[in-house]
């Protein structure tokens, strides 16, 4: 029977696979696998160290100040970070297959242990670091507080593991399920929440700056200690600081029980992960469409399943929202530049070999992506205009209309060039290629604007030159599309 150390070592291989697939999920385009492997090793360790550092800072501060509110904040932050920060990795873990191990001379129980250890590896550094630092810190201040402090952090982590595992299972089902009807919308919402967890680390600074407000509320709530003692994490916080009441004692016992149940539930589900099949009998409903619509549908499905693409597509809309609090013209011009990036990146959705064996012309693929870019442009502009109207500023609808043909032309030209180069080599690896393609897109989209401003200076007219140049660009790009 392999020792625990041996099982831990085996779980390392599976953890590296989970980490690799998580990083792969968040990459746009076809980055070389070597780069992804390298970045998966580095970024996973870096993320763990950052989380460990942040939590340890909280642990030290809490142990030093030794106030009830500090303990409350510390437990809440610990639960929150463990529940959300590793959500993407745990979602990958839920889909992890351990069937490879069944051909090895291992018992089912040992395979279960490997699966559990793989799951624990996701949290290992921050979990060990924060527990040690917090318990030692508390012990140095008041030896009697060790037990409630340790139980408090154990329950925080146990509850977080329950939450993160439940959400992972939910997201895995929603993100990978079929795309019919309302499930597409649910999946998109899940995708956004799921992807947001990846950016949590960037929000940590903001969270920390808000803590002083939270503390204010908690001091006020302390007067209700008898009632709050039933609640997590107040029960443990009171016990740590020596406020021993009936409610805090009972609350601690109840929440410890719940934490135990949470861990038990997670462990039993992890055992299922390595053995069960999530497949279910399915209905077959096939909607046959035109090739262009088939590509649009396929792209939308891929976008909604890949967080990197979801964000890329939503970026112009978010930008539209953010820029709408400034001046109108700069907002529109910046928005247009995001569409160039989007046009180039959308090519990464195409599996070149699949396309090669199908009777499909580049024109079909480009038209499909152009439709998606036009939709994103329309939604971004609608968001932008709505906010401007709410602010009492009338947007320049005529300019938006005049530049629309140029947006379509830019999409066609950028995608045509990308597909032409992409047929021969990888368009996502060379910086030179990227810059050329970006430049091409920027030239197409900003030429009407530049000509418009020149004409404004020379002849005092802006809109007409923009519209004419934009239309000329569209005519040329459509001619180009027909040649492909």
């Amino acid at each position, binding site marked *: 029977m392999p020792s625990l150390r041996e099982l831990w070592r085996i779980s390392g291989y599976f953890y590296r696979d989970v980490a690799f697939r998580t990083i792969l999920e968040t990459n746009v385009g076809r980055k070389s696998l070597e780069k992804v492997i390298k970045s998966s090793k580095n970024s996973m360790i870096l993320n763990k160290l950052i989380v460990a550092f942040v939590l340890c800072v909280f642990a030290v501060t809490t142990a030093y100040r030794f106030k009830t509110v500090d303990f409350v904040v510390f437990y809440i932050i610990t639960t929150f970070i463990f529940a959300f920060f590793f959500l993407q990795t745990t979602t990958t873990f839920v889909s992890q297959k351990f069937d490879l191990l069944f051909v090895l001379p291992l018992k089912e129980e040992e395979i279960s242990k490997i699966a559990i250890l793989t799951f624990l590896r996701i949290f290992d550094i921050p979990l060990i670091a924060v527990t040690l630092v917090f318990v030692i810190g508390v012990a140095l201040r008041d030896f009697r507080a060790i037990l409630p402090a340790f139980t408090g952090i154990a329950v925080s982590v146990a509850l977080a593991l329950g939450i993160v595992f439940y959400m992972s299972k939910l997201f895995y089902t929603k993100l990978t399920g079929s795309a019919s009807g309302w499930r597409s919308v649910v999946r998109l919402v899940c995708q956004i929440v799921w992807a947001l967890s990846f950016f949590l680390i960037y929000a940590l600074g903001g969270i920390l700056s808000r803590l002083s407000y939270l503390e204010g509320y908690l001091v006020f709530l302390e007067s209700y200690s008898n009632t709050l003692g039933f609640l997590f994490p107040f029960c443990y916080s009171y016990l740590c600081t020596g406020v021993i009441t009936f409610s805090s004692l009972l609350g601690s016992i109840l929440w410890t029980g719940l934490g135990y149940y949470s861990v038990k539930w997670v462990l039993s589900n992890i055992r299922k992960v390595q053995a069960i099949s999530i497949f*279910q*009998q*399915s209905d*077959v409903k*096939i909607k046959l469409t035109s*090739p262009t619509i*088939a590509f649009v549908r396929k792209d939308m499905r891929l976008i909604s399943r890949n967080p990197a693409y979801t964000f890329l597509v939503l970026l112009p809309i978010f930008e539209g929202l953010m820029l709408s609090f400034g001046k109108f013209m700069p907002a529109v011009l910046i928005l247009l530049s995001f569409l160039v990036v989007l046009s180039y990146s959308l090519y990464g959705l195409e599996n070149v070999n699949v396309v090669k*064996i199908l009777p499909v012309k580049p024109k079909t693929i480009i038209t499909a992506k152009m439709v998606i870019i036009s939709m994103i442009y329309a939604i971004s502009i609608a968001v932008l205009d709505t906010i401007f109207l709410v602010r009492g500023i009338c947007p320049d609808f005529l300019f938006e209309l005049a530049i629309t043909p140029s947006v379509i032309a830019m999409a066609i030209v950028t995608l045509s060039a990308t597909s032409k180069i992409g047929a021969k080599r990888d368009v996502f690896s060379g910086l030179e290629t990227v810059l050329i393609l970006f430049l091409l897109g920027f030239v197409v989209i900003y030429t009407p604007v530049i000509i418009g401003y020149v004409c404004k200076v020379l002849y005092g007219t802006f809109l007409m030159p923009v519209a004419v140049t934009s239309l000329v660009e569209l005519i040329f790009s459509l001619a180009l599309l027909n040649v492909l």
Partner: protein
Amino acid sequence: MLEVTDLTVKYGEVVAVDSVSFCVEKGEIFGILGPNGAGKSSTIKAVVGLVDFEGKIRINGKPLSFESKNLIGYVPEEFMLIESLTPLEFFEFVASVRGVKNSRKIDILIDAFGIRSYVNNPIATLSMGTKQKVSIISALLHDPLLLILDEPLNGLDARSSRILKEIMQKHVERGGAVLFSTHIMEIAEKLCDRIAVINNGRIIAEGTVDELKELASVEGSLEDVFLKLTGQDVGIREIIDAIS
């Protein structure tokens, strides 16, 4: 149905296929046999337009083109699937792009290969055998005239293998053609009307199983013929004795 003349495929300086010529007639299953790295898959990839080549490839009398791609149903050796899609979404995509008007055949094929339970799960999560079935169904759903199957039985269970073999035979009975590559000699011997043996990028023998036996002066099975023709029979006995 398929004429290949002086086909050469190069990867940089390496010549993978060297002036290969053969034709596959209507109503015929044509097998390509060869050791690993002999050039079988490169030949097939050239025929379906996946790699650049020199020489001539004509399908139904016309050069390889956009239109001719719809005459071909191709099962590659390595999966060419969009792994984030579910099998159903992938079939829907392929069928729509190929201009299929009726989805009934997809429904029948899903049941034939027993993958109804998996059609709404991402392809990435499926087993190798199920992925192979998805690949086969997507090659058959548009009723192609020419089936090009590169190691199609890889990972298939006995039932699905039988179904695929029956499909191949029915296909040629209806006037279609099959270009088929395999390592399993028994299946090639049983299924193929004619066989080309390819080694080091060149066709070294071509004909019916009986013609190949005559050519190699071997009385045994196709496996014996193949080993003799490719020079791989040398030293087998010694190796087995050494292992024993």
